[in-house]
């Protein structure tokens, strides 16, 4: 199953529509969390759930907006993920910080991201299986060092 996570706040119809077009050509189920966006037509979709973890666990591949919380959950889970950052020029967010986040995740972990949804193709979604090498070391370091600050 391929799962799409669009987050919340503004609609992300650009991503929803592109994956919806591909869904009829793919050989596996597609489920989309659409948030404030339009429902999908060619695959199952829902606006919100109390948690997306079970959907992530069930998915072979996740295509996600580049929100920090979602990206972190997927990295920790060791799930193949393609990031599609929300962009200001399409009124998907108030600025382009998700593009920064996606670029950093690519530099740091080799995560794939696309800015143009036409780069999402049947072949890419069928074959993509890269799992980023996750490490807790930066978080462990923060937690060790912040204790010494807080206990002064």
């Amino acid at each position, binding site marked *: 199953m391929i799962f799409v996570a669009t987050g919340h706040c503004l609609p992300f119809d650009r991503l929803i529509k592109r994956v919806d077009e591909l869904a009829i050509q793919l050989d596996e189920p597609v489920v989309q969390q659409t948030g404030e966006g339009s429902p999908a037509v060619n695959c199952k979709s829902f606006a919100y759930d109390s948690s997306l973890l079970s959907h992530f666990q069930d998915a072979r591949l996740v295509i996600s907006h580049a929100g920090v919380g979602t990206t972190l959950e997927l990295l920790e889970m060791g799930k193949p993920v393609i990031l599609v950052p929300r962009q200001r020029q399409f009124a998907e967010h108030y600025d382009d910080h998700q593009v920064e986040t996606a670029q950093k995740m690519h530099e740091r972990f080799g995560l794939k991201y696309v800015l143009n949804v036409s780069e999402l193709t049947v072949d890419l979604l069928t074959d993509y299986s890269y799992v980023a090498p996750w490490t807790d070391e930066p978080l462990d370091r*923060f937690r060790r060092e912040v*204790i010494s600050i807080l206990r002064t």
Partner: protein
Amino acid sequence: MTPSQTTKPTSILLAATTGGHLTEGLKLFAGLPGTQLTVLSENSTRTQSMDNAHSYPKFLTGSIGGLIGGFFKGLHVIIKQRPDWVVSTGAEVGIGALIAAKLLGARTLFVETACRVRSKSKSAKVLYPLVDVFLVQHEEGLALFGGKTRHIGGLF
């Protein structure tokens, strides 16, 4: 009792806007050894299920409600609990609470969100001059802000 058993935990109030900011804050600060954490945020399924959260209803859309609520609820909680530190990962709830903390003389710490690598969040721009400790989660952030900025790791 040994001295370690009588040491009072360091009390931390984490003020963060519900959603990703609160998620980051909890990852960074929850369960630190020798500390006791309480949370200040807006009402949500998560905050209402937490034993250690002070939350308030979202009464205005946009940033103003978060800022006003964070400030006044922050005043209330800080006066009542006298935390050793008030920390925040943003956004407007954190701005309001950290301003309240400064007015009340509490120690303050701000962590720029991990989603900001080469740009500044609104919270960071407002809070950099105010807080006692200012942290960024990416090394690139050191070049964006002034001399008191520190990088000690982060979520990624």
